[in-house]
């Protein structure tokens, strides 16, 4: 699945904030699990870094209290959808 423009922006944020120099943002599959070793192999501290970056970039504050945090962080597609919905809900 090709990335949507929103997913492209989120992919760039993730690659930038985690310094994944060897990962091209456009190569991240929107449906692949990011936190598994065969995905990007991210861990909980990466999730913390991503949450901080999303707060700075989108003014959206992620919380473990959000319905299904694990699913939100699971894939680029889910994360982008959640953040976009939060931004739209505010507008």
């Amino acid at each position, binding site marked *: 699945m090709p990335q949507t423009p929103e997913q492209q922006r989120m992919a760039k944020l993730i690659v930038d904030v*985690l*310094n*994944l*120099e*060897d990962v091209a943002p456009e190569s991240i599959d929107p449906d692949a699990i990011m936190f598994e070793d065969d995905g990007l192999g991210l*861990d*909980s*501290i990466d*999730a*913390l*870094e991503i*949450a*901080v970056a999303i*707060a*700075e970039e989108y003014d959206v*504050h*992620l*919380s*473990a*209290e959000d319905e299904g*945090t694990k699913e939100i962080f699971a894939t680029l597609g889910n994360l982008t959808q959640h953040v976009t919905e939060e931004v739209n809900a505010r507008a």
Partner: protein
Amino acid sequence: MYALELIARPETAMIAAGPHGDLSAGQLGADVATLAEQLAPARFLINRCEDRYWFAASFLAAALRGQITLLPGQRTDEAADALRRDHRDTREIADHEQARDQHVALVAGGNGSARAGALASDQIVARAFTSGSTGAPQAHDKPWGLLCQGRATHGELLALPGAELGLVATVPSWHMYGFEWALLLATAHPVTLWCGPSFFPQDVARATAQLAQSTPATVLVTTPVHLRALLKSLPDALPLHRVVSATAPLDPEQAKTLEARHRAEVLEIYGCSEIGSLASRRTASDAHWSFFPEFAVQREGERLHVQASALPGPVTLADRFAPTPGNRYELLGRTADLVKIGGKRESLSRLNRELCALPGVVDGVFYDPEQLGLPGTGRLGALVVAPQSTVSELKSALAGRIDPVFQPRPLTLVQALPRTGTSKLPRAALRQAVIDSVGGAPVGA
């Protein structure tokens, strides 16, 4: 040997707040009694409860049944499986859908109030494991009396006279630090434990705001990694009375910023896996450590031997210290971190501090290839996370701060260091990172 209460709080006292509402010490006592009856027989219990209340109930129930709780230090199935391979007669308990063995909600819950009973001070109630910074994992048994001495002094360190405290921890209960500084404190002091989500900065903000409604002051028990995230994403002051930090060195400048922003004292805890928390300092204003009163400290050169009545024998600390006035100690560095280059001695910890303090450096570590079992040329190397910097910029910045013999050869830029969830850098992971980024060839050629 003497008996010590499991929950030394009045039955009506509030002990937990969170998604399940406020819960009293008596309710916890009743849940502990129910759980203790229903736990499957076993010698060891791996406690994988995410909710701090259920973790506490399961741990106390296991102790009442004479079962030793294993603290895996990590959340994963793999960590639990590794423990089960080394410990026969082990069961698990969890409070979430992925529970593989006993599920806490199926065996406990409901309304009640009871005292939980007492345990002998020499009963082993928990077993923790070293994180592996200095080698292979090692088991460390925790007698109930030792944990109770700790909960007494840690509580005194935090308490406002006569005041109720809320407590938010970002570290899990199955890590020794979270176990001591969240769960155990609530069993003996006027502390209400936040049991809801607390991992992300927004969760911490929500938790402290909610606790502030019922308690006059709140303590945050956390790590330097979480504090960095908090500073970045929460510009406003949180209603905090104290911040407790452990697991990795806290930058004094960061401590000062935190104190100014939240008007809260920032306490840093020094500990070792064999015993647990040993000493504290107020990092923003004090470079020296004060050991907790239950420990008798004997000095032999730069080594310290620590003894306590609840310990079977003295424990020699792996780190080196120098005595300072007022019965306090300056941490010189880890003994394993001591390096000698060109006849000069230096501590890797100090070098790491200098490296991490450079502008643009996000994270960094010096290593001695020979200590990692790699070919060496008598020089140190460094892995550095500094996205905006070049190797030559970093080297010239370092030149003013460290003796030139300790200049890393090579200094290698990397994307990240393989730190664990508690900021530690296990030796094996560091070794692999060096091999991956520098190569197996002699370093420093």
